[in-house]
């Protein structure tokens, strides 16, 4: 199958400091790709390049090519890129000025969906996919920030899912959550696999192993190894990878 996204010798800088070096990587369609590596190795930066959020950071720069379905991201309108490639952040970021309903509807409205029934349908569908509907259906007009941490993160996932992106980027979506909430989100990722392409950054190696089909290992801004998850964890090509996944450093 053709890759959903192709990254070709991507370099990225903050100011004069280079944090990604010549990263090339094909992200397979309809699968979960995990990105692992020690703190500060550029995982978040890589992810932020994939929906062109990197360029919103002042004084940042990048070079190289990223293709989405064979088309160069930088030749497309950035708004199109972003509704096709959604993002969930490490910290839950519900919009505090909006209700649960409005949080999820925000992206739909941006897409031009204004009909009440269509909005309702989209909101409920997204909340269901994110596994939050049962908990909030009584209460969708409560502020998004009135939810618990884990619920807020699922709300953010629902918000991202509502516009039905083709690719969903998740930057350590569980790092602030307890094991139960983490479990729910991992289960959710498994169900997303069929309809979305997912890229997830995680520090939790067991999680990467559980949820992903492919794993990329980054070290000091370079892609060290990228392969099927099983291979990376059991039969790494590189010594560095082996050391990392076996917990000998990092």
């Amino acid at each position: 199958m053709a890759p959903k996204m192709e990254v070709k010798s991507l370099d990225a800088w903050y100011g004069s400091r280079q944090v990604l070096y010549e990263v090339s990587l094909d992200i397979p369609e309809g699968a979960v790709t995990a990105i692992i590596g020690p703190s500060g190795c550029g995982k978040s930066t890589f992810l932020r390049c994939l929906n062109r959020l990197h360029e919103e950071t002042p004084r940042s720069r990048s070079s190289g090519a990223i293709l989405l379905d064979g088309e160069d991201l930088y030749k497309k309108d950035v708004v199109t890129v972003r509704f096709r490639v959604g993002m969930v952040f490490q910290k839950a970021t519900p919009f505090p000025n909006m209700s649960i309903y409005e949080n999820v509807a925000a992206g739909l409205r941006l897409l031009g969906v204004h009909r009440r029934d269509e909005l309702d349908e989209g909101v409920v569908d997204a909340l269901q996919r994110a596994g939050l509907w049962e908990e909030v259906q009584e209460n969708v007009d409560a502020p998004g920030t009135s939810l618990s941490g884990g619920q807020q993160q699922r709300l953010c996932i629902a918000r991202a899912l509502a516009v039905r992106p083709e690719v969903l980027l998740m930057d350590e979506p569980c790092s602030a959550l307890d094991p139960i909430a983490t479990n729910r989100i991992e289960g959710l990722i498994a169900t997303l696999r069929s309809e979305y392409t997912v890229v997830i950054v995680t520090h939790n190696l067991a999680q990467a192993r559980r949820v992903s089909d492919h794993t990329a290992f980054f070290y000091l801004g370079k892609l060290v190894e990228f392969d099927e998850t099983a291979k990376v964890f059991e039969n790494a090509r590189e010594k560095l990878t082996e050391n990392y996944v076996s917990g000998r450093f990092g």
Partner: protein
Amino acid sequence: MNAARGSTEAKNAPRVRLLRGLDRIFHAATAAFAAGILLLVGTFLAVLLSGAWPAIVRYGFGFLTGDVWDGVHNIYGALPAIVGTLLTSGLALLLAVPIALGVAIFLSDIAPPRLREPLSYVVDLTAAIPSVVLGFWAFIVVVPWMRGTVEPALASVTGGVGPFSGPALGLDILTATIVLAVMILPTIAAVSREALRAVPRIQRESALSLGATRWEATRMVALGQARSGIVGGIILGLGRALGETIAVTMVIGNIFQIPTSLLSPGQTLASQIGNNFGEVGPGIGLDALVELGVILFAITLAVNVIARLLIWRMGENGRSDPSRSRWRLRSPWALARRSRRPLGARSSTAPEPWRERVHAAAAARIVRRRTVQWVMVGLTVACVVVALLPLTSVIITAVEHGGGAVSTASFYTSEPPLECNPGPGRTCSLGGIGPAIEGTLILLGVAALFAVPVGLFAGIYLSEYGRRSRHPLARSASFLADVMTGVPTILVGVFVFVLFLQFDHNSATSALSGGLALGVLMLPIVTRATEESLKSVPNGVREAALALGFPRHRVSLRVVLGSARRAVVTGILLALSRAAGDTAALIATAGGSNFWFQGLDRPTAAITPFIFNNFSSSYSNLQEDAWGAALVLLLLMLVISLGARLATRSTGAGLDGE
């Protein structure tokens, strides 16, 4: 070893007791200064009310509805001034708020990062222009422009009916409105900008990640979350507009009538007081003016209270309990219906067809959304340009008219000249503002002598003792200091004048009363600045020093005050610069004089009243002197604000925001 320690402890015991005693004295002393603020506010209210009492008794409610101000027959009514105040301030808000919001959005969300800081600083500078200088500029630049260009154009476009009827005078409600808008715009812009900046970047990034344009991210997320801060800024601006005296007086035409049109001259509460205060002796006429002050105070207080309630309500809404909004389900039936649908039915709404259809439609709308984005960027840029015009024009005008004077050495040392216009074979001496400079320095000295120690110690109390105990004294002193910063300065002048009248007729207009008026004006600023600077010192610093065995008062004075000294000094400097630029408090108290200092109990010259007294002078040398004085003031404000900026910047707070 234990024995050795025991003996040192025994030796130290008297010392420890002494230090404990000192601690207690220090606590009590700072508390007394904080209580001084309460006392001051109490006196302020009592003096204003008792000053106005005879008029309140004599005219009753009729005072609010009367529309005549007749000093000869002692018939007084406040209605025209009330209408004038509400009209000019309300319209000024309408003018200023959209532009200020545009400026704030540009400076927080749109401007290239390296432009943000310097541009914000320049916009803030406009707020530092003393109102007498702004009024002077408006009188020379805006009034002729209104009279010659804007008002005739308005009249011809609208047919000169209703709010646009009447002759184009230039000195009228509309011009006053514009000047007020210029004054309050930077305040509103600055507060809104900070509120927008406080919205975390990740919130905007979340919106961008949903496919929002930058403008949409600002509108959807940042503006929504900054709402209560923005409202706060607007109220702050409104408060300033309601109480502004000098700049309004200089352009409003000063006719006590209910305005029938935007082009008719009028009067506001503050301008009516400012115009007449120096001219009436003690008696019912003065009492009536003080009653105008009471009304003005009541209005500004009401605005403040309403603002606080509004902000409080909005803050509540941000994280209110869900039960309140639960029943406002947008479309409960649709949602309820769907809620019953089993989860398994989801596959029927497979994403593919929906995604293709909606994404294609969205892609088709992108050009339109981009256009909106660019239009908004263009509009905010235009707002910044408009906001910077007055400052630019003020500086150019002041340099043009006053540049000669300030570059003449004798200007700083001479007395004002005799009135003179140059003619054939006649040159006029320039004279100078020596006595005014001397007077201002003395007034500031008196003010600082009063306000700095009181404000400093009260601030120490509020931060060091009040914070932990949440003592009612601390809470009310902090709150009242806030209220006092919003009190129109003309009222401070009226207060001090009436207070002095009770004791000694002759010194009611004197250097002493003028200095005290400026001190009352400075006090709340020094107090709050000290409190906030000390509060920003991390608690670890205090705990570390206490753990080392320093007594409480040493910790407060040396360690905490020491590490916040830059911020404290900055606060005092800013208070001094506000006092130096104020006119309204002085025209009620300092009396005015053309001579060198003659004693604290005598009227004194000062820079701002000098400008105010000569701004419309028909003698060219006096006009030039006034412009020279205005330029001197502007330079002073510039130096102080630059100094404050450098001082606060090099404390290292937020070196690199990224």
